[in-house]
């Protein structure tokens, strides 16, 4: 076929029917407070790594809920585990445990 230079983009719409509840239950067992995130963004605002990289705990949590596990792992990948976000999180989430659990459960090698 002649290449006219057009491409079809895959849909960027999230299909929540694909949500992996079992995997998420594993995560919420390891860190039950993940359920409490209110998406306030304090973690990202205070993140040591976030100034230089795409680190965001808020987006990591939301990516999991939006069935984008790869993005979730990416948002957690550059975390230094410094714990600043634990200090600011208004829901007192054990953020470091959550970040580690996300990598463990959703990372490539489980």
């Amino acid at each position, binding site marked *: 076929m002649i290449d006219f230079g057009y491409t079809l983009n895959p849909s*960027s*719409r*999230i*299909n*929540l*029917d694909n*949500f992996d*509840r079992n995997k998420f239950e594993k995560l*919420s067992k390891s860190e*039950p*407070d993940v*359920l*409490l995130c209110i*998406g306030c963004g304090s973690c990202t605002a205070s993140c040591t790594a976030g100034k230089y990289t795409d680190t965001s705990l*808020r*987006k990591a949590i*939301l*990516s999991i*809920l*939006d069935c984008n596990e790869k993005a979730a792992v990416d948002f957690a990948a550059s975390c230094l585990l410094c714990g600043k976000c634990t200090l600011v999180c208004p829901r007192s989430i054990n953020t470091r445990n959550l970040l580690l659990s996300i990598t463990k459960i959703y990372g490539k090698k489980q």
Partner: protein
Amino acid sequence: MKHANKNIVIIGGGPCGMEAAYRLKNEGMNVILVEKGPSLGGHLACWDRLFPESIKADDLLDILKNNISDVNCFLNTEIIKMNLRNDAYDIELSNGITVLARAVLFATGFDIFPAEKKEEYGYGIYNKVITNKDLEQYFKTGKDERIPANPKNIGFIHCVGSRDEKIGNRQCSKVCCATAVKQACEIKERFPDANVYSFYMDLRMFGRHYEDLYYKAQHECGVRFIRGRVSEISENKEGKLIVKAEDTLMGKPIKITMDLVVLMAGMKNSEAGIKTAGQLAVLRDDDGFFNSEDSFYNLEKSAYRGIFFAGTCLGPKTIPETINEARSAVLSIKEYVESFAND
């Protein structure tokens, strides 16, 4: 000395009218409660459990009813005519009785926004779309053909008929966020295997203990809150619902198949109340609710002598707020009636 006129007509037998009737009776007034429907209770009689503590609506209803067992209540009755005559209102009721009332309290309450007007959500078209009111009815009776035996995905849609200029209601209905969160917990208790979603724009958990309810919905019930207004609902071949919205926190459109969708229909001023008030040309605000003399210090007073308001005919509010407003109106009515004794 002329016999003092202590006749007070209360229009509407919901929580507001019932509480006002009880307190006015205790103040020695001669109360006539006029309710257009076949029973007392207003919307309270439609609810199963009340937020935030989940107390039984019927328990509160019983208290309010018992308080006024000796008050003159006319059910299935409406106001036919109301005219001001010598500092009193000459009122003709549909049951043939006429009253010369010193004061009139509008406790005419609210109407639920007719959800079918928001056509893109398919209420009345798709079988699996119900309203908050329908769900309360189901909780009360355990019966609703539309609710499947084993729903997998259940969605709550906030702000239906509220915060929406397109359907003519700009205001927030105030009670539906708390209702949605309460009902999300309750449905999760009934169907523990279901995934429960709530589509909100802002979560207005303003009252005492409401934030705890939100916390419970997240932590104990695992309700997923998605910030974004649902744009449309459609039905697929299997009769399931396809819901579309944006997760505005991630900036991505989402789509999900639902087995049941519950619409948080909002509050508007009662049509019947508006009709009765129309006889006096009572003024209403942009939002359709009645206008107080002022909104800080004289909330329960109207622009007319002897005409008072309380409860949800003055705007969306909770039952405790309604009851407090009823009591405050009673105080003002009493002062008003007593001002004639010194004439």
